[in-house]
């Protein structure tokens, strides 16, 4: 596992598109210690590596698939009413560099 330090956390925040203050990173770092030590203990639980990871609470497998029928789309007004900077029915942004 990657070592957690302030730089790691900063990088993570950067990937998640937000910033935090130095003080906030410090305090999060302390929380990380306690989380990681807890998770280490879990790694020692008997049989933990004999089971499959669980995503769903119980077996929820079904066979439903939606029929391919087009529904009524949103009006353009509704689609865009919560967005800013609308030009010609599109949402405007500072130029995106690919």
């Amino acid at each position, binding site marked *: *596992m*990657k070592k*957690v330090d302030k730089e*790691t*956390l900063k990088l*993570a*925040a950067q*990937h*998640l*598109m*937000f*910033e*935090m203050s130095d003080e*906030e990173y410090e*305090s*999060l770092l302390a*929380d*990380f210690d*306690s*989380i*990681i030590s*807890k*998770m*280490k*203990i*879990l*790694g020692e*639980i008997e*049989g*933990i*590596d004999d*089971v*499959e*990871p*669980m*995503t*769903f*609470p*119980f077996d*929820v497998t*079904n066979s*439903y698939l*939606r029929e391919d029928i087009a529904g009524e789309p*949103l009006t353009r007004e*509704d*689609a865009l*009413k*919560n*967005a*800013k*900077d609308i030009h010609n029915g599109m*949402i405007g*942004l*500072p*130029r*995106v*560099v690919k």
Partner: protein
Amino acid sequence: MRYMDKNLREIHNAIISNSVTPLELVKEAIELAKNDDNNAFEYICEKEALEKVRKLDPSKKNNLLYGIPVVIKDNISTKDIPTTASSDLLKDYVPVFDSEVVTRLENEGAIIIGKTTMDELAMGGTGTSGHLGTTYNPWDKTKTRIIGGSSSGSAAAISAGVVPIAIGSDTGDSIRKPASYASLVGFKPTWGRISRFGLFPFAPSFDHVGYFTRNVYDSAYLLNILAGRDDKDSSSSFEPIEDYTKHLEDKLEGTRIAVINGVIDNVSDKEILNSFNKSIEYLRQNGAIVDYVDIDLILLEAIQPTYFIISSSESTSNNANLDGIKFGSRIEGKTLEEVMVNTRTNGFSRRIKDRFIIGSYSMLEENRNELFIRAQKCRRLIVNAFNNVFEKYDAIYCPAAPTIAPKINLKEDTVFNKVNISEHYMAFANMGGFPSITLPLGFENSMPFGGNLSSKPFQESKLFNIANYIEKGTGLSDKVAKRD
């Protein structure tokens, strides 16, 4: 005459006998909401509610919910009514569609009178982290105690007698914990039993729509309305639905109930233990078999970290749509990246960012085996352990919390609390999708506390049956925190 203190059947009878009209009920609820001093409301839908009540279809008069005012937690989508999840980032967001729960309630004739405060994006258990600040516990006249969360405003509104039913959501214990602190019946069904369409996702594999009532009958009745397959939610169950009020009075003979030692051993409050034991006595007197059962302590202790890692991981992804571009409080910048960063930096409080970083970190390739995947494996062990109990028992019964509502402490709610099994164990029901109900057990220094009952998936009828007996034993139903 005040009606919002009463239960559904009492209010309904008053409507049927023309003692009161839906309009009068809605006006009463709105008046109470306006005078709310617990910080329960994000938005009071006065105009919308008055319009809807005028358009009520009188042919639906015989529905129990006809004309009944309700409040909705503010992470549940309501068309043309602001829905903020108590986050600054969403303070101006107005949905263009209704959630399935709202549609079903309105089809029955219920009237939404307000949207309620919550912990920001439902991530928290104290009701102190929403963008409008702390929500208070109506039972505490000094305004020094939390009501718990994250469904804090819904709990506060119903326990203060503003409405007879309140919709919430439960990812760890977000309905069932506040219910304990507020003398309420707080219920979440089996995962997939009530459609989540329109519920802002926190951690979908744990998320449930649920609700508060002030008695077990109302809780069972509400499930009749809200349960059932919804094609808009792929996780919605195809299991047939039932009349959940039908078995409330069934005899308890032969019903087997397990108390988990590891939980009860960590409750030291004498009043709580005393009331809990009394309710067990009552269950036994009525023919139930109550046993004390062990679950490996390390698994009980693992519930909180497991819950925390999985929920944080899922939440990071679920909230990646909050970038200010399609909706939300966009803050400009010179580049696209700057727009996103400015919006998210300003839109989320610190504890949300903490969770996102922890969640994201847990899922990175180099860490996932020791964090996310390990938590998912642990989840299976925990659920297996509870399923083993459910093989022999119809229900698991424990105090819902080790204490009455704690004092407000804004510093305490860091991301990772000290583990106390009895404080955090209820998340097992989210991990296994088990239906679970909290109901009042008693009072200590006039502050309420409750017990919690869970069963196997889709055994809601049995759950309500046992809950109904517990309620009879305590005599604690339809309790409203009195205003001075």
